[in-house]
């Protein structure tokens, strides 16, 4: 079995190992973590012949650069409009190529997008916590952050030039400025005008954006006596409103419980596209009924599954 080693010549902040996520442990205070954009993560993995939920590297706009010091490995980069420079050839991501000893790969911020994924054919070595390598940024549990001068090790690595190709970013993986929400569960705890301020107003993503969540700027959402509600479970996509009327959209590494009222919840099936917006991007919220939300989730799952299936079977 072959092992490929990459030396990390640059790793910016917020670059981490992520597998498909640690589901089913919210009751123990453990959020799902896993990729911010699950669609792009799965696409990169499938394009190199890995399982969809295999460990890959989540790269932020701060970028990642590596040098292959031993072995050779087919890789794919997918997610956002990032740029890459592989062995001196510069271009967009959404590509599968092969990295050989002595070659370098640099992944950089591009025209759009907040997260991209580097998948490597084989098994990426990373520390597991509770059976998963997904990194929980707040505690560092799981695979953890990548650091400059560190190493990425791919066990049972494969070089499969037959997989090399580009697979353009599909429409459903582009950023979306309209997030669909189901109103509640604590909309009744806010002033009636708060809901119209959320749904009719234009909000802007602030710079306060990380794996835990993103704070929004927009019309203040008046809360009533809602600051003393007992702590209750939170999911990724919850829009919680703090005492100052500022809304925060909670993301993959969210706290599992909290006492601020949640005015609405973004559909899980819209989150992959929302997280590809950048700070200062505008966002609007559109309310849908719970039944419509389920329909949307099913439609999107079908469309994504068909596309991911074609990626997996292209060799």
């Amino acid at each position, binding site marked *: 079995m072959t092992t490929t080693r990459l030396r990390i010549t640059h790793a910016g902040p917020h670059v981490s190992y992520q597998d498909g996520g640690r589901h089913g442990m919210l009751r*123990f*205070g453990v959020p799902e973590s896993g990729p911010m954009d699950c669609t792009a993560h799965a696409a990169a993995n499938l394009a190199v012949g890995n399982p969809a939920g295999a460990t890959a590297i989540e790269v932020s706009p701060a970028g990642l650069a590596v040098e292959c010091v031993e072995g050779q490995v087919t890789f794919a980069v997918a997610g956002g409009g990032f740029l890459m420079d592989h062995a001196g050839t510069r271009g967009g991501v959404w590509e599968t190529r092969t990295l050989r000893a002595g070659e370098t790969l640099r992944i950089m911020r591009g025209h759009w997008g907040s997260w991209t994924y580097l998948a490597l054919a084989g098994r990426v070595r990373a520390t597991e916590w509770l059976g998963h390598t997904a990194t929980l940024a*707040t505690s560092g549990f799981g695979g953890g952050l990548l650091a400059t001068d560190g190493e990425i090790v791919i066990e049972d690595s494969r070089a499969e030039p037959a997989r090399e190709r580009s697979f353009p970013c599909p429409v459903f993986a582009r950023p979306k400025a309209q997030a669909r929400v*189901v109103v509640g569960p604590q909309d009744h705890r806010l002033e009636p005008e708060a809901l119209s301020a959320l749904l009719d107003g234009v909000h802007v993503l602030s710079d306060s954006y990380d794996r835990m969540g993103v704070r929004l700027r927009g019309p203040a959402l008046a809360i009533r006596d809602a600051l003393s509600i007992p*702590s*209750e479970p939170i999911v990724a996509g919850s829009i919680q409103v703090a005492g100052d009327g500022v809304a925060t959209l909670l993301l993959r590494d969210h706290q599992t*419980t909290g006492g601020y009222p949640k005015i609405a919840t973004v*559909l899980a099936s819209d989150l992959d596209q929302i997280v590809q917006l950048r700070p200062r991007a505008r966002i609007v919220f559109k309310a849908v009924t719970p039944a419509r*939300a389920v329909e949307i989730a099913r439609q999107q799952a079908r469309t994504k599954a068909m596309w991911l299936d074609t990626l997996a079977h292209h060799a």
Partner: protein
Amino acid sequence: MTLRLAPVAEHALLVEFGETIDDATSERIVALDRALAAAAPDGLREVVPGMVNLLVDFDPLVTDHARIEAAVRDCLTRPVPASAAGTRREVEVCYDSDLGTDLSAVAEQTGLGVDAVIAAHLGGDYRVRMYGFTPGYAYMSGTPAAIQLPRKPAAIRGVPAGSVIIAGPQCIVTTLLMPAGWWVLGRSPTRILTGDEDQPFLFDVGDAVTMRRISRDDYERKARREDPA
């Protein structure tokens, strides 16, 4: 007590039993949690107990809010499973003053002596109500009225893992080095994040907990042994 069911996005239902934290509400939450575990409806992914409510998370490709609501209502009509009583767990605590850094402050504010504060804490009847904030933070009820204090005005940074902290009727054994605005009474070598694959968390919601005092020597020995490093 009014039951309120609220949809959460396309994949969950929040079942709320009331607005105030009390034992009767907690018992209903634990009972529904166990009932759903005993007869899981199709598509159920996870049940997450809160203080006055419980989140039922489901796979929208398999089921929907209406079916989950029907399953919840069905569970509520059934007798409470015997497992709802939970398991009794023990937490060992060393109350030496350099570990229980707020013992004297609590003694001063409650008008009790340090020994009486420790005795009161040991006498509490603790029950795990929910996990929250960060992995393994189990919120227990049962801190006796005599030593109940509101949180500190501001969180103190760097409270070590294993700290036994109280605020109001609540008590937590911390699992990570974290800021905390709660009162630190002692330190425990008992690991809540066990590192055991089959039972990674010591408590489940609904478990009863007894505090047991241990000596400094015992603490040091066990803390070393339990240290995952």
